[in-house]
């Protein structure tokens, strides 16, 4: 086999024994290749300097102790989780199936509990009561207003032509009360649930009622 300098690197990298022999033969007459081969081999020789297989008598006992401790620890751990020890005996596929089944059972249970929960009826009584109370108040107000209007109708002839200054004052007072009642009624119409307005309106009606009674009593 003939080799040349150009084959050298290939043979150094991955040459067959025959190629190495041919390269050695070529190196006899080629100083450059001889030098390269020597350098290449020297690295392998130098690598021996990194080899030290001196035995350390205490090393294996140390490893053995660590292995035994680890094995004992694992055994204890396995005992602690003994009730779950059946799990590894199932394949991952079966474990997935069990996990899926568990999720399904939990979902169904949750759904059943949700559907059968005690239903709390909405607490509408208060609002109904509130509404009915409001209606009652408004109805009472209307009746009260009608009664006062009747009373006012009786006093009308005296107030339109007051015979005394007292009746003239009553007339003016009633005009002011009517004006105040009209304002309060307008406000109560905007905010019918406002109890304070209702109380004020009631107070005005009472005042008007008393005034009208006083007018009737003051009849000459």
């Amino acid at each position, binding site marked *: 086999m003939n080799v040349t300098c150009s084959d050298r690197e290939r043979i150094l990298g991955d040459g067959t024994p025959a190629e*190495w022999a041919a390269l050695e033969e070529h190196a006899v007459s080629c100083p450059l290749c001889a030098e390269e081969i020597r*350098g290449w*081999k020297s690295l392998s020789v130098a*690598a021996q300097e990194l080899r*030290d*297989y001196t035995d350390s008598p205490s090393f294996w006992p140390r490893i053995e102790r660590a*292995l035994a401790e680890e*094995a004992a620890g694992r055994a204890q751990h396995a005992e602690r989780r003994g009730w779950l020890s059946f799990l590894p005996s199932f394949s991952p596929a079966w474990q997935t199936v069990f996990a899926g089944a568990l999720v399904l059972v939990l979902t169904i249970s949750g759904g059943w509990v949700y559907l059968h929960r005690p239903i709390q009826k909405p607490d509408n009584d208060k609002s109904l009561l509130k509404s009915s109370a409001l209606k009652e108040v408004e109805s009472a107000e209307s009746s009260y207003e009608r009664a006062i209007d009747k009373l006012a109708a009786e006093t009308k002839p005296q107030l339109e032509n007051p015979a005394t200054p007292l009746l003239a004052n009553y007339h003016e007072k009633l005009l002011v009360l009517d004006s105040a009642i009209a304002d309060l009624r307008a406000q109560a119409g905007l905010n019918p649930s406002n109890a304070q307005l209702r109380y004020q309106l009631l107070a005005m009606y009472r005042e008007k009622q008393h005034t009208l009674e006083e007018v009737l009593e003051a009849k000459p």
Partner: protein
Amino acid sequence: MGTMGLALPWRARISSTQCERGTRVEPSEHLADGPNPAARDALSEDAALAAGCRSGDLRAYERLYTVHGARMKNLARNVLGNATDAEDAVQETFLKVQRGVASFRGQASFVTWTYRILINTCYDARRSRQRKKEVTNDDSEETPRPEPRAPGAHPTLRMALERALEKLTRHQRDVFLLYEVEGFRHAEIAGILETTETASKNTLFQAKKNLRLMLEPPRSSAAESR
């Protein structure tokens, strides 16, 4: 000139067994053609070791240590730079083997798998050491501590080679150590480093070229010194 002043018979074939290992010089991969009874024995030994370790038999681990312990420690020392860290790494490797042997499916040989764990453990330790060094703000360059070596060792050459190896890429360093120092075949290295035989050969070639550049004096100065 430029050969580090050493010359040994280069045709010494490296055996896969530790006691017969000698100087590793090419070509070594082309000699193992045909059916090899030793390889068959190695395979059955490997399978027996795996089975023993899987069953939790400490004697199997002891056998693994007896056959490979010194080589594992030497490899770890060359990666980590000192014997203490190397012993820790080897011990951690045995523990990892014990923890993971149940999941070992036999895609690679058990011993190859063990060495892969060792290499990864060594580099984890290196990274951890580097992080500690960064935390303590220790800017001093890491210098390998002088350690007792086998009789006949050449400390200057060893230190020069160790320094040069540090400058190689991780992959080049691993392949050089596994092939030239520990005597693994490229097929085994491919299994350990999860690469291909061809890549292992190419990497070794590049590693040796780089090492030569670092270790040998320039040709011109060498010629002048004559």
